[in-house]
């Protein structure tokens, strides 16, 4: 679609690659998780001698990201790494960027395969999904009702993770675990609190909550703490160590998972550089050295390709203290 009408591809496909500017576009501003990822990206690119542009819209919308990408195209950056607010909505503008020779990669939240050269996946969604169920099962000794508190968003991989959780639950060893409800807190504090309270009231026998979203898990941790349910209802999921530190220390959430956004950002930086240098094309089987992140290989991801980082990292009472100040 972007090429309809004609003259949009001037500026030249080759000219863009002469630039040394690497841009990172996160979902929205004022998000420490994003800030850390951008820090990682910055350190990697600067180490490689590139110039870094860090941008995010004030609201987590695709519209805002489109405007930023247009501005980046005008500035003729070499590469754009983006944590997409929408799978599909960025396709036209990212295609336009790629038409002008800009290398595009998505990080953390993927954009669809047409609108990127490659995706840097922070962790394997299948592993994320399965590991949550394994954890919960261990926490409640394989028996009882559980619920999921999600956000409601297309940008994140929530739904994919939940699907993997459901698949994992089909295994016979979890036959005594019953998933009673998937609730949505919209990544809003107040709504997540109401939803958690409703879960507790509607299912008095609830044994555990899985919240694979940073806002949701913190809100749920707060509700469980306030209601004095620690030990009675277990909590796990994906959360920021800083946000979850007090609940992990108090035992409301025995442990939870996340990856290191700094490392994700770094890998994104090395990948962007490799794309711009032409040392990889974003095709399956390409390999390159990602500095202190070691050697990375491009693998398949549906219709596109991706770089897959390892398992999510487990945060528990033993290690939370050293992470809570980091991010």
């Amino acid at each position: 679609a972007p090429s309809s009408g004609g003259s949009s591809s001037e500026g030249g496909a080759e000219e863009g690659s002469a630039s040394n500017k690497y841009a990172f576009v996160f979902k929205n501003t004022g998000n420490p998780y994003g800030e850390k990822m951008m820090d990682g990206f910055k350190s990697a690119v600067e180490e490689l001698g590139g110039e870094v542009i860090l941008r995010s819209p004030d609201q987590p919308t695709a519209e805002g990201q489109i405007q930023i990408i247009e501005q980046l195209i005008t500035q003729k950056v070499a590469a754009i790494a983006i944590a997409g607010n929408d799978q599909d909505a960025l396709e036209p503008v990212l295609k336009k960027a790629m038409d002008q020779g800009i290398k595009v990669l998505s990080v953390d939240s993927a954009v669809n395969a047409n609108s990127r050269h490659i995706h840097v996946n922070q962790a394997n969604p299948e592993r994320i999904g399965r590991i949550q169920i394994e954890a919960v099962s261990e926490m409640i000794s394989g028996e009882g009702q559980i619920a999921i508190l999600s956000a409601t968003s297309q940008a994140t991989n929530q739904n994919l993770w939940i699907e993997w959780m459901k698949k994992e639950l089909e295994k016979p060893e979890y036959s005594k675990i019953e998933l009673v409800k998937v609730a949505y807190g919209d990544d809003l504090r107040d709504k997540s609190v109401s939803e958690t309270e409703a879960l507790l009231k509607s299912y008095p026998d609830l044994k555990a909550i899985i919240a694979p979203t940073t806002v949701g898990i913190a809100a749920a941790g707060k509700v469980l703490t306030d209601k004095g349910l620690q030990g009675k209802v277990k909590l796990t999921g994906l959360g920021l160590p800083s946000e979850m530190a007090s609940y992990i220390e108090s035992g409301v959430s025995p442990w939870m998972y996340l990856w290191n956004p700094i490392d994700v950002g770094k890998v994104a930086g090395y990948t962007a550089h490799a794309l711009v240098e032409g040392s990889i094309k974003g095709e399956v089987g390409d390999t390159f050295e990602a500095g202190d992140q070691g050697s990375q290989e491009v693998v398949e991801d549906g219709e596109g390709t991706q770089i897959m980082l390892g398992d999510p990292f487990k945060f528990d009472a033993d290690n939370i203290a050293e992470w809570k100040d980091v991010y």
Partner: protein
Amino acid sequence: MEQRTSLDQQGYIHRDLLDKKDFSLKRFFLQWEWMLVIILFAVMIINSNLSPYFLNYASLRDGTMIFLDKAFIVFPMAMIMILRDIDISVGSTVALSSVVMATMYNSLGVPMELAVVICLAVGALCGFINGLLIVKFKELSAVIVTLGTMILYRGIAYVILEDQSSGTFPEWFGFFGWGYVFGIPFILILFIIMAILFGILLHKTTFGRQIFAMGKNPTASRFSGVKVDRMKMIVFTLAGLMAGLTALFLASRMGSTRPNVANMYELDVIAMAALGGISTAGGKGKIIGTVIAVFIIGYLQYGLGLINIPAQTLLIVVGALLILAVAVPKIKLPSFMKRK
């Protein structure tokens, strides 16, 4: 100015009333719109000094494309504000009409041409419902009604698409958001056409005159035979229709849509109209002012974006500009700068 007076047969002092205004250069240049032109120039000059990428044809052209979608709603919003009302449901209307269009095409197999028409129709319908409620329940103000429908329309969009996005439109549909005609963005051409149409509608027709009359004094307008209810419904329907148009451009630009697009657009639109000199106290304003205001805000954001100013600074700058632009004339030139 000579004063021709005479006594008529009953002995009244009979004065010949002047029916032509003499052209006053001072009055002409003391219009608010000149102030906006100056601001616009200032923005352009500052931008081109800040960024080497700003001042060239391709940059201005593509920069213009990306801020114009919601600008279509500014025109009817100006009319609504002249009527002393406000419509805060337009963002939700954009979302709902684009979602209906996408669903029609993707899930129900409706041809895209028809879906486009439906998109506009849904927008107009949303506006019409606002108008109807406002007219039928006069005790409720437009803020109340549109606050309700704002939540409702977005809610319906969620019911339809849930948390999915719906996309993959035909190739030609991309033309709305990305197409050029003779090297000029299609959206810009349409925007200028709409500006002219709305300008004529508001300033040169009986319809526009009646809008201003209603803004100044709705009761007297009613007593003078203005069909105030019908006028209101038309204006709100127009707002819905323009929201539908915005939905087309937005969906085209994103190649897809989902229920949470165009969030808080109403506030951006109101800010543009206010900067353009439309007073929410009613009865005042010019379309040309809103057009300039759209470009001021658009280029300001674009230009600062080109030097990669963080979003939070941009918020502050735009807010401060709005305050300064409306406050400065009040502080310095209280009696002249009154728009009349």
